[in-house]
C-alpha cells in the first residue's frame, strides 16, 4: 500500500518506526529449545510475529570427492504457503534460497561445526547434517530469526548412534560439537536511516539491507547485502557496529 508505505517512510526519515521501536531495538525475541524431539536438534524462534522453526537431522552418506575426510552441511529453507498469503506452493523461490545460503555461510564460515569431526570413515562414510528452516509466520527479518534458530538447534543437537550399518535415531548419545555461536543482525536502510530487525512493513519499503553475522569474539563471518539501493561507507560501518553490539544480546538467548 503506497499510502501506508509513505507513512512509514515519513516516520523513518525522522528515525521513527511504526511499532514505536528504537532504531537499534529488536522485537521481543523468544527462543524455544528442542520443541521437536524427532529431530536431532531443533529450535523455534519468535521475533514479534515472525515465527521460524529449524530442525537438524543427521544421516550417514558419502563425502564430497574434494573433501574426503569432512562431513557435509546442508541448509534448506521452505517458505511454506501456510506462513504468508504471499507464499505459494512449488519449488523454493529466490528469497528462500538466499535465506538458506546466508544461514549456511554464517555457520560454515564461522567454523562453528568442525566438519572433520563428522568423518566416520575417510572417503567412504561421513555424517551429513541437514538444517531445515521452516517458516511458520512471516512478519519480516526471516534471516535473523532463521539463523538464530539454526545455531540454537545445532547447540542442542545430539548425534544418533551408528553401528556401521544403521543409524539409530531414537538413541542419541554424543552432543554435536559446536565451537562458535555465529549470530546475524540485519539492518535495513529506509529513508536514509538505519534500523535493525525490520518488520514486514519495513522490509517492503527498505532501500537496502545488510545482514552481518558475527562470532563470539566479535569477528565477522558473513555479510549479505540486499535490496536495490546502494549503501555508503558510513552506513555499512554503522551496520557492522550494530551487528557486534546487538549480536551480543542475541547470543545470550542462544544459551
Amino acid at each position, binding site marked *: *500500500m*503506497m*499510502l*501506508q508505505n*509513505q*507513512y512509514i517512510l515519513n516516520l523513518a526519515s525522522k528515525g521513527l518506526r511504526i511499532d514505536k521501536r528504537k532504531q537499534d531495538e529488536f522485537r521481543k525475541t523468544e527462543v524455544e529449545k528442542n520443541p521437536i524431539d524427532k529431530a536431532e536438534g531443533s529450535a523455534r524462534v519468535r521475533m514479534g510475529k515472525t515465527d521460524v522453526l529449524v530442525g537438524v537431522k543427521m544421516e550417514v552418506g558419502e563425502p564430497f570427492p574434494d573433501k574426503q575426510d569432512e562431513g557435509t552441511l546442508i541448509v534448506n529453507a521452505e517458505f511454506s504457503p501456510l506462513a504468508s498469503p504471499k507464499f505459494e506452493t512449488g519449488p523454493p523461490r529466490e528469497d528462500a534460497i538466499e535465506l538458506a545460503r546466508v544461514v549456511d555461510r554464517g555457520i560454515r564460515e564461522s567454523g562453528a561445526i568442525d566438519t572433520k569431526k563428522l568423518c566416520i570413515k575417510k572417503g567412504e562414510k561421513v555424517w551429513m547434517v541437514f538444517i531445515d528452516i521452516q517458516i511458520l509466520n512471516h512478519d519480516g527479518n526471516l534471516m535473523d530469526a532463521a539463523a538464530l534458530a539454526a545455531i540454537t538447534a545445532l547447540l542442542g543437537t545430539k548425534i544418533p548412534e551408528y553401528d556401521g550399518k544403521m543409524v539409530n535415531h531414537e538413541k542419541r548419545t554424543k552432543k554435536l560439537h559446536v565451537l562458535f555461536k555465529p549470530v546475524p543482525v540485519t539492518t535495513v536502510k529506509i529513508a536514509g536511516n538505519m534500523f535493525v530487525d525490520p518488520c514486514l512493513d519495513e522490509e517492503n519499503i527498505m532501500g537496502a539491507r545488510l545482514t552481518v553475522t558475527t562470532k563470539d569474539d566479535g569477528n565477522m563471518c558473513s555479510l549479505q547485502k540486499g535490496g536495490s539501493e546502494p549503501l555508503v561507507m558510513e552506513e555499512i560501518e554503522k551496520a557492522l557496529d550494530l551487528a557486534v553490539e546487538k549480536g551480543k544480546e542475541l547470543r545470550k538467548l542462544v544459551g
Partner: protein
Amino acid sequence: MAEEKPAEKAESKAEPALLKKEREFVVPGEKIVKSMDYLPGRNCFREGDSIYAKRLGLVFIDSRVISLIPLNFAYIPKFGDMVIGEVVDIQENGWVVDIDSSCNAYLPLSGVREFIDTTKTRLSRVYAVGDLIYAKVSQVTDPDRVQISMKDMMSRKFRGGRLVSINPAKVPRLIGKQGSMIKLIKDKTGCRISVGQNGPVWLEGGKEDMAIKAIHLVEEESYIDGLTDRVSELLTGKPQEKPAVKPEEKPKPQEKSAPAVNVEHSSTAVQRKLNIKPEEEGK
C-alpha cells in the same frame, strides 16, 4: 411482549427449545434451537426441526429470529458497502482495485464523478497505481465480478494519513449503533477516520495513536458488555458521563449494520434502520 412469547412456550415444554443462551459462543454445526417456532437468521441454518450455527459466533436472539454475531470472516463484497482499496492496475476503461477480498474490484469510467475524455486524458492522472481510494460497492454480479463507484458523496482518494487493518467481522462494532462508536473515537481524538467495511481503517490528524488503541480495543473486546464505557475511559482517562443508566446496546449481527462512516457525513450516513432479515423464507 412478542419477544417473551416463544421463550415462555418453550419453558412449558419438557425440553426447552432454546439450547443456547443469548450471546453464548457457538461453533459451526452447534444446535441452537430445537423448535419450528423460530426462524434462522444470518449465519444460521435450519435442518429438520432445529436451527444450527453456520459459523463461529455469538448467539443473537431477536424475538423469533435466531442469528449469530460472527467473530471472524474474510470480507465478501456486498452492494452498498463502503470499502477502502488500492488501485493495482489500469485498463482501457477503468481501474482494477484491490479491496482485500475474494477478488479485485473494477472501477469503470462510468463510476467516476467527472467526465473523462479518454482520447485526451490518461487514466493514471485520475487514479494512479498505488492510490488508495474510498469507494462504494455498486454492483456484485458474482463474487468475482464486483464493481465499485466513486460517485457516492463519501467517496474520495486518500492523500496522506495512515492505515490500520481490523477484522472485517468487527467493523459493525467499530462503527457502532448509528455511528456512535466511531463518533466517540473521532470526537475524543480529533482524528479524521474512514472505515472500510472490508477491514482497513484510514486515519489522519489528532491523537492518531490513541485512536488506534481504541480501534484495537473495540476489535478485541467487541463482545464484552460495557465496551463504549471502556473505550471512553481509554480515551479520556475517566469513565464516560452518561445521560442515563442505559444497558449496553446489543450489537446487531448483520455484517452491514451501518455503512462505513466518513468524517463529514457520519450522522446522515448511518441513519439507516437496522433490520434483521431471515436468510431463508421460513414463513
